[in-house]
């Protein structure tokens, strides 16, 4: 009660909207810390409401991470489903050595990497089949991905950036996605990836370098492509 009164005093002091957000986030964090163990215990005992609460808190975070890694809505939804099914099955084995959030992100990343591996294998198999003259045609390359959360004015550039992100090595891609799309700190990423903060720093540095390199290649080719297209048009007329 006293706590509520102090919050009301705070509301009078500062602007309302900012404080509501502050209080919400404060209570939310407090809820997470206080009830994480309780929540886990309830999920283990099979309470659907507790599982629903877990999904309410982490569902969108996991979905957004999967979407960033897989760059396809359906695949991201499937991976999110797999993550929560895995969580439900193995939450009894969760020892609490890391936070629940870290554990969830870790499962999500490993699921996404599995999906990527399977996709790569399927692509390779289709390529071999096409060499042997089988009827299957080669899978079309990934269409440009539009993330629903990107600002409208940045959509076109983001599309190119996502294409470059998909070509990054897996560790760099993971670190970049967790940092840029989920806003995790270096320490949090290090915990998820089970590595050191300095390793994450170097991964992100290399990811940025590689992205700049592939973006430069992309835009150079596009400019050259556009120029050659113009030249061919001039020659025709």
């Amino acid at each position, binding site marked *: 009660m006293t706590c509520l009164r102090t919050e009301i005093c705070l509301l009078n002091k500062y602007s309302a909207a900012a404080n509501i957000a502050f209080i919400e986030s404060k209570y939310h964090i407090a809820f997470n810390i206080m009830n994480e163990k309780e929540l886990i215990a309830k999920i283990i005992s099979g309470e659907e409401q507790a599982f629903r609460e877990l*999904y309410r808190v982490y569902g969108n*975070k996991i979905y957004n991470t999967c979407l960033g890694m897989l760059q396809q809505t359906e695949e991201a939804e499937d991976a999110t489903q797999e993550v929560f099914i895995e969580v439900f099955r193995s939450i009894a084995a969760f020892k609490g050595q890391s936070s629940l959030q870290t554990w969830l992100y870790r499962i999500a990343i490993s699921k996404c990497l599995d999906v990527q591996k399977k996709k790569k294998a399927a692509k390779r198999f289709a390529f071999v089949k096409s060499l042997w003259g089988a009827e299957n045609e080669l899978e079309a390359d990934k269409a440009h991905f539009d993330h629903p959360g990107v600002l409208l004015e*940045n959509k076109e*550039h*983001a599309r190119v950036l996502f294409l470059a992100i998909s070509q990054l090595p897996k560790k760099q891609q993971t670190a970049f996605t967790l940092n840029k799309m989920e806003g995790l700190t270096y320490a949090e990423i290090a915990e998820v990836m089970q590595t050191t903060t300095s390793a994450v720093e170097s991964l992100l540095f290399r990811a940025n370098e590689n992205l700049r390199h592939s973006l430069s290649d992309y835009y150079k080719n596009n400019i050259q492509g556009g120029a050659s297209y113009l030249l061919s048009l001039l020659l025709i007329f």
Partner: protein
Amino acid sequence: MKPTLQEQIEQSMKSLNGMTRAEASPFLFGKIMHKLSRQLPEPVYYSNKMLLRLAAMILFVLSLNIITVTRYKRNTTKKVNEDTQILVVTQEYFETDNLYIY
């Protein structure tokens, strides 16, 4: 004016700034629950009495098996001994291949 290569790269690198988190479909939780209910079989509970009866039955069948196997083994060894005795006696009588010499 067309942006330079460097400007385009910078714009792309900054394109994720200010992005918001993508929200999952509102039906996703329902799908998860459906998948879970399909994958997990309904738990089956047995009473202690029933478990005891089952254990006793298994023990009874097992002991019957053991008794049958040991009896069968004993019988076969006896039969083998009898056979060897008959063989020894016949060998004493028919030491040579010549059937006319006794």
